[in-house]
C-alpha cells in the first residue's frame, strides 16, 4: 500500500547554517515527487526528515498519517525503502544477502525468497548475480541491487537520494527506464532527490524546486515551464533547455 507524506513548516539548522526554513509539502499516496535544487538547497535534509536520519528543530513531519516521532526510528526506517548515491551495499556480503537485509530485519518468513523476487524485478536474475560480491558488479548493476534492496520488503514508500548521480549516461538511462516501470507496477510513493531537472521530469509526477532551504515552486513540469514562479525557476529551465538545444543543433 502506498503511503502519503507531509511536512508542515519544517525548519532545521546545522550549526549556524539554515538547511530548512519553514518548508511544507504534501505527497499523496502513490505519487512520485522530485526534490530539485543545487547543493545546499536543503533537498537532502528534507528527504532525511522522513526516515528520521534528520530530526528537524521545528515543524511536523508525517509518514502515513502519523507523526514520525511517534514510533522508534529503527521501526520507521524498516518500513521505508532507501537508496543513496553510492548504493551503500555492504561490501563483505553477497548480493542476495544484501537484498535480504530488510526482510530479515522485519522478520519475514522467507527473506531470501523476497530478495530473489526483488532482484528479478530490477533485472538481475538471482541465479547469476545473487552469489556475487558488490565489487564484482558494474556501477549500474550495484545501483540496481541497491534498488532491489530498497523494495525487497515491499515498502509503501521509497526515498531516493541522488540514486543515479554517480552513473554514466547510458547506465543512467537504462536505470531510469526500469525504475519508472518498477514504481508503477509496485504502486509505491517515491520521493527523489536530484540536481538534474531532466531526470526529475523523466521520473516524477510533481517537481519541488528548492533554494537555500525554501521552496521556490512546486507543481507538474508543464506548470514550471509555462509559469515559472520565480526568476530562479525560470533560469533553471532555461539552462536545461539550452543544454537540450545544443544537442539538437
Amino acid at each position: 500500500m502506498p503511503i502519503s507524506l507531509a511536512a508542515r513548516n519544517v525548519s532545521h539548522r546545522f550549526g549556524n547554517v539554515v538547511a530548512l526554513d519553514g518548508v511544507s509539502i504534501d505527497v499523496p499516496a502513490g505519487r512520485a515527487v522530485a526534490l530539485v535544487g543545487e547543493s545546499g538547497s536543503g533537498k537532502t535534509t528534507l528527504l532525511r526528515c522522513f526516515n528520521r536520519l534528520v530530526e528537524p528543530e521545528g515543524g511536523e513531519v508525517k509518514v502515513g498519517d502519523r507523526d514520525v516521532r511517534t514510533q522508534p526510528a529503527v521501526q520507521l526506517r524498516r518500513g521505508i525503502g532507501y537508496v543513496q548515491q553510492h548504493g551503500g551495499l555492504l561490501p563483505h556480503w553477497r548480493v542476495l544477502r544484501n537484498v535480504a537485509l530488510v526482510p530479515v530485519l522485519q522478520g519475514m518468513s522467507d527473506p531470501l525468497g523476497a530478495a530473489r523476487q526483488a532482484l528479478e524485478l530490477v533485472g538481475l536474475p538471482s541465479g547469476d548475480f545473487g552469489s556475487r560480491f558488490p565489487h564484482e558488479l558494474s556501477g549500474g548493476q550495484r545501483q540496481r541491487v541497491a534498488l532491489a534492496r530498497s523494495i525487497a520488503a515491499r515498502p509503501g514508500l521509497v526515498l531516493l537520494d541522488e540514486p543515479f548521480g554517480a552513473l554514466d549516461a547510458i547506465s543512467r538511462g537504462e536505470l531510469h527506464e526500469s525504475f519508472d516501470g518498477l514504481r508503477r507496477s509496485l504502486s509505491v510513493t517515491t520521493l527523489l532527490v536530484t540536481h538534474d531537472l531532466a531526470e526529475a521530469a523523466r521520473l516524477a509526477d510533481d517537481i519541488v524546486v528548492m533554494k537555500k532551504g525554501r521552496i521556490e515552486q512546486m507543481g507538474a513540469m508543464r506548470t514550471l515551464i509555462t509559469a515559472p514562479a520565480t526568476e530562479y525557476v525560470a533560469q533553471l529551465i532555461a539552462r536545461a533547455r539550452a543544454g537540450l538545444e545544443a544537442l539538437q543543433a
Partner: protein
Amino acid sequence: MRRVLLLISWLLAASETMGAQSTAVASSRDNRPIVVASKPFGESYLLCEMFAQVLESRGFKVVRRPGLGATEIAFGAIRTDAIDVYPEYTGTGLVAILHDSLADSVAADPRAVFAYVARQSAQLYHVRWLPPLGFQNTYAIAVTQKTAAQHHLRTLTDLARESPHLIAGFTADFIGRSDGLVGLTRVYGIRPREVRPLAPAVKYQALAAGAVDVIDGYSTDGLLAKYDLVTLIDDRHFFPPYEASALVSRRLDQTMPAASAALTLLSDRLDEQTMRNLNRRVEVDGEDVARVARDELVVLGIVGVFRVTPNTSRGAQSGFLAYMWDRRANIVALTARHLELVGLALIAAVIVALPLGLALERTRRIAEPTIGGLGVLQTIPSIALLAFMIPLLGVGFAPALVALWLYALYPIARGTYTGVRDADPDAVSAAEALGTTPTQRLIWVRLPLAAPVIMSGIRTAAVITVGAATLAAFIGAGGLGEPIVAGLALADTRMILSGALPAALLALAVDGLLGLVERMVAPAHRRGTFWRRPATTRSS
C-alpha cells in the same frame, strides 16, 4: 579502567601466590626461598652468585634475580622486600641512595663512611648493611696509554685541563649521578667535548677502538688490566670510598637472622687483588660465573668441595652454534618464559583495549584525548616504567607483565578505534537508513570491515611486546632478556646473541603468524586475494 587495573593486579598477585606455594617445598629452615639479586655488571653478578652459594651451602633455598636495572631498581626492590639481598657499595649508598655528602675528614675514612651509611639506611629505609666484604671498588676514570702520553694525563686535574679536546664514554648511571660526571664537573671542572652514554660492556671496546678517549670503570674491573689502561688519580679526593657489602632487607634480617649470619661469613674475606682476579676470570677469560664463585668459596673454606663441575669456560675454540646447542634447554626455557610474558600481556591488552576502542567510537569527543593518553604511556622509557612498578608489585613477573600490558594498549585501542570509525561509511550509513540498530551495525558491518585494521594493531602490539619483554630482565622477570643483560654485564657477545637472536626470530615468527591471522579475518570479499590488491569497491 582503574577497576580493570585492580582486577589484573589482583589476578597477578593470586597467580604469584599460587606459584610460590607450589615451588616452596618445605626446607629444613624456612619455607620461603631467599631472593638474591645483583645489578647489571660483572662483579655484581659474581658477588650475587657467591651470596647464593653461601646460603645454599647452609641449607637455605635461593632464588637468583641477577641483573636488576640499576641502583634505583635494585634499591627500590630491597626497600620494598621484593628481594632479600644484593651487593652494594657504601659510596653509592651515600651519594645515590641517601643523596648525602660528608665533610672531607669523614669522607676520606672508609670505616666512618660505612658507619654513617649503615646507620642512615637503617633509620630511613630499614635495610641493613652487613659488615663490608673487604675490598673497595671505586670509580676509575681511565684512558689509554697513548692518550695519557699525548695529553700528559696523570690526574683528574690534568683531565680537566684537556677535557675540551676529549670525547667521554660514560655509563648512563655515571652521567646522571652526583658522584659521577655531575660532581666531576663541579669539583674539577671536567667538561668533555662530547659525552656518549655507553653500556658497561662496550665502553672498554669503544675506548680500545678509539671511538672515545676516556671512560668510567671500576677499580676492580678485570678489563682495566687487559687493555693496559691508565687510571687517573683522584687528586682532590672527590670519590667517596666504595666499600662492597651485602645489603640485606629488613624482612630477611628479622625473619631469617641465620641467613644474615651466613652471609657475614664473607665479611672481610675478599681483598681487591682477589676481586680483580675473579673479575678477570669472568669478564676476560669468559669463565662461568657459578664456577668462579664456587672456586673462591672453596679457597676461602666457606663451602666444601663436594661436586666437581666440568670447566664450562667459553673458550674461543668452541663455535657459536656449539655454544647455542649446549645451552639449548636453557634457551627453550627462556623462550617459553618470554612467550608467556608476551602472550599474557597481549591477551590482557586485547581484553581491555578492544572494547575501549569500540566504546570510544561511540563517544568520539573523548576518543582522541583518551588514545593520546595511552600514546603518552608509550613514551615512558621502559626502564622508568619498570622502576615505577617496583613499589606496587615488587620485582619479577608481575610488574613486567603490567608494564608490557600498558605498552600494548595503545596500538590495539588505536587500531580498533580507527578501523571501526573508518569502516566503509557508505555501507554504514545505508545500514542505518534501512533500520539496523547500532549493535547490528557494529556486528554486521563495522567489526567485519574493521577486522584487518584491528588485527594489524594487535600484530604491532605483539611485535613491540616481544622486543620490550627483553627489558623485563632488568627487574628479574626472566625471558630472553636474561642472557642479553647478563652478556652485557659480563662483556660476553655470545651470551648476548643467545638471547638476542631467539628474540629477533620470535619477533619475526609472531609477526608472520599474526599476518596470517590478519588475512584470515579479512572481510569475505577480500579473502582469496593473497597475492594482489583487492579490487576497489567503488567505480567513482
